[in-house]
């Protein structure tokens, strides 16, 4: 059982928080540059997620002992 894919939502929320900070508050220039770079990284990750993700479809199976496993569903 795998972890879910990297979170688009987390990248988006971080990016929004950075943009708001740059727009609404006065920040030391070094810090602003750091935030900008982080924002660019989030932007890149989010775009890659949108561009490169492939839909995963799994089938859930319950074993007789109640254990749960998944396998790839033939499509």
């Amino acid at each position, binding site marked *: *059982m795998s*972890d*879910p*894919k990297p*979170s*688009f*939502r987390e990248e*988006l929320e971080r*990016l*929004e928080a*950075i*943009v708001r*900070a*740059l*727009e609404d508050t*006065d*920040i*030391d*220039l070094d810090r*602003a*540059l750091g935030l*900008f770079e982080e*924002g*660019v990284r989030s*932007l890149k990750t*989010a*775009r890659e*997620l*949108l561009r490169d*993700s*492939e*839909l*995963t*479809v*799994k*089938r*859930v199976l*319950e074993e007789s002992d109640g254990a*749960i496993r*998944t396998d790839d*569903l033939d*499509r």
Partner: protein
Amino acid sequence: MGGLDLFGTVPPASAEGAWSVADVTRRARQLIEAGFTHIWVRGEVTGFKAYRSGHWYFSLRDAQAQVRCVMWRSDNQRLPGPPEEGMAVFVEARPSVWEERGEFRLAIKQLLPTAEDGLWQLQLERARAALERDGLLDPARKRALPGYPRRIAVVTSPDGAALRDMVSVVGRRWPLVELWVVPSKVQGEGAEEELCAALALVNRLPEVDLAIVGRGGGSREDLWAFNSERVARAVADVSVPIISAVGHETDVALTDLVADVRAPTPSAAAEAAVPDRSAALDALAALSRRLARGLSRQAEVGHERLERTADRLSGSVQMQLERRENRLERLAATLDALSPLKVLERGYAVARDETGRVLKRAAAFTPDLAFRLGFADGDVRARTLGSDE
């Protein structure tokens, strides 16, 4: 009909040779069962009772008469639910006699309300009322769907058109998500049980943030499991937001009423479940522009601040320099005071030998030693005459 000869033997004409109760009821049953085969009867249901065994007992009546009826479990199971008191029905029945009670009754094979869809409708209304009573239809229960789901549990048939449609829509709109298909029959014998089990299983899956339960279109009988009160309760028990998607345009299934969102088709459920990739890209583009503007705003603010800082800075440097100059002057003065020249100016002279080494002690002046005496204004050559010792 052959009349009394059906009793087989000559009926007893006197107390001698009297039949037992069992004899007469058995013979009455045989007579009646042979006399009618399957007949259709119309009447109103009254005194309905369902026993724990699953068998139904009631009477049919009209203005003049009534007759007891039984509908065995094996026959009533095919119906969506029991009839209502006073409901007008057609029954297909076999008349008989219940020997133990000596009771004439109809064993009912089929029961149809005279109003079209009467029983289905009735059962639906009953289940709906029960769900309502328990607060499961309260709009306040409805939860918002997650904006960016990462794992969606889909309760449906793994080889149905519904799943294919959902996979196609989600794959196009939002391939960032994982679909976890929890297989279940969606119609026919056992569908209710499987749907309930699959919905319960959803609650045990890790990191699921949304569920969809559904199937494609079909006849009302095909869709009936989604009108089951049990299945509706299982939908209500799912711990994450859930979309009900039963492929039908006009009717609303019971699962639709308890789910957080009702979709008219599985494709529509998929659309509601995930955001659209191109809209998300647009949103990112807007954020990207704001990010750049935000930075340049900070740079401007920083520039102004820097200028202010520079003003302050140059002021402070000036002060530092002045402070340093004063200090240098003081130091220079000190150095000056320590210079040997100043000492010589006060009337002293320094004696050096020919090599320039300073002669500090009388013992250094050997007899006839040639040396120089340095004064502030110049040197004088000299020679030792002797010592005072």
